[in-house]
């Protein structure tokens, strides 16, 4: 995969270096436990966390990098719930140097009390969609599949043969296109972004690699088509749909 080039000197801070736990206390609070030793930041550089979502952006200064181990707990009274909150971690030089980014982690989904820490490749959310049955929306951490609140079968419908055959493959096609159009990771970064995760899935399905730096051409469209066809075969979409029709 061709990667976007990072022309700045900032380093990408990997998710594995960030222990971030949101607590459903009143007010909401967070515990940060960061291991930044491997990045070689100056000892006096400052680490800042920003919790964002709900049209809020709450900054917490976690302290100096020091030996690389940074830990702090903080209340986030400006946030009304943990719903949809993500974290951005920045490392900047100590004052009075200008605040150029030395390191950055974007769109980090924190672990939340009582929830699985892993983010699904495609989270599902029930929403008010009028007459639309489903749609894919793109949020900063990645795509989300929204399903109409009024659907009688609820999210169980997503597992039915109808949905797999007629919608799930279209969902895959849409997201792969969006991932290619938006481009992959910055050079030097590990594969962490949602685009990269989805393109990797597409590569597994299509059986071949795909290069993209934001340009989607006929070759990419063929790759998406092959990935969708492989997905349909894997799910036996037509066979199961026909079986369902026969049984009903």
């Amino acid at each position, binding site marked *: 995969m061709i990667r976007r080039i990072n022309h700045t000197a900032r380093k990408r801070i990997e998710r594995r270096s960030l222990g971030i736990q949101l607590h459903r206390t009143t007010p909401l609070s967070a515990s940060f436990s960061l291991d930044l030793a491997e990045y070689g930041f100056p000892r006096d550089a400052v680490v800042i966390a920003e919790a964002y979502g709900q*049209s*809020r*952006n709450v900054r917490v200064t976690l302290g100096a990098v020091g030996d690389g181990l940074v830990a702090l707990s903080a209340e986030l009274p400006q946030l009304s719930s943990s719903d949809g909150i993500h974290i951005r971690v920045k490392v*900047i030089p100590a004052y009075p140097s200008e605040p150029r*980014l030395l390191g950055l982690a974007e769109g980090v989904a924190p672990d939340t009390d009582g929830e699985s820490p892993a983010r699904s490749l495609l989270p599902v*959310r029930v929403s008010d969609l009028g007459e639309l049955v489903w749609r894919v929306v793109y*949020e*900063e951490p990645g795509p989300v599949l929204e399903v109409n609140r009024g659907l009688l079968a609820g999210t169980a419908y997503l597992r039915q043969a109808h949905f797999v055959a007629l919608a799930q493959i279209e969902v895959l096609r849409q997201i792969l296109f969006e991932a290619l159009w938006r481009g992959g990771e910055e050079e030097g970064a590990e594969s962490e972004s949602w685009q990269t995760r989805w393109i990797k899935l597409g590569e597994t399905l299509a059986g071949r690699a795909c290069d993209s730096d934001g340009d989607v051409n006929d070759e990419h469209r063929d790759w998406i088509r092959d990935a969708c066809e492989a997905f349909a075969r894997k799910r036996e979409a037509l066979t199961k749909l026909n079986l369902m029709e026969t049984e009903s």
Partner: protein
Amino acid sequence: MTKVVCRFTGAGIASFRQFLETARLDAGASIPGALLRDKANAEPIPGAVPFLPVTGTRRLDAAKYVDDILERSGVRASLETDCEFWAWMVAANFDHLCPKDVKTHCYRVGTDWSYWIPELRNYRRRHRHRLSGPYFAYRAHLDDVQNAMGVLGSRMNGYNDLIERVLSTEEFQTSRAINYVVTKLYFSNKSNAIKAGVGGAGKGGSRRLADVLAQFALTYDLGALTGPQLLDMLPGEFDRFRS
């Protein structure tokens, strides 16, 4: 006229959607009173807050109006994330928030309904809602509202390219430095309104500003910059708005 502030029920939201569909094409369409009042469509919010229609013309007026209602309700946090509440509020003030087209005499509803029914989880659209958009911008700058007049000084009932560009991420929306720059560049204290020629992709315009700021965000911690520092970093094309 409804007497207390309400939120839509599921049936109410569905009926409001039907109204929006009709209003786009039917010059005679108006919000049915039953939609706002009937138990099947609407239920009072806590606090029995008396309903008074929004007044004023600017987004700041809209923000203060809702802020007062949420304060009186006593359940600010839950109503802030309640789409049915925001939708009802827009419906109850529809004539004020949605102008009519001078030629067709139909409401200018458009096809993007996030202006009327908020998409609070969608960071690309949530700022568009005619009441929750101004409200959240206002709350983010509550201690220095004058610093946010660039995004609160425009009309509450129209599309605004400046808002569309500057409020599309939380980092931009809540940054004091960015709001300082937007206000200094684009808000006229003399006329108490947004300057002419701000929208669009022209030199020094709002789209260019969004592009430049997005570029800066890759290099700088915008939250650590002061407004004057950020203003000084802008290229010369913005000079025409500095006065």
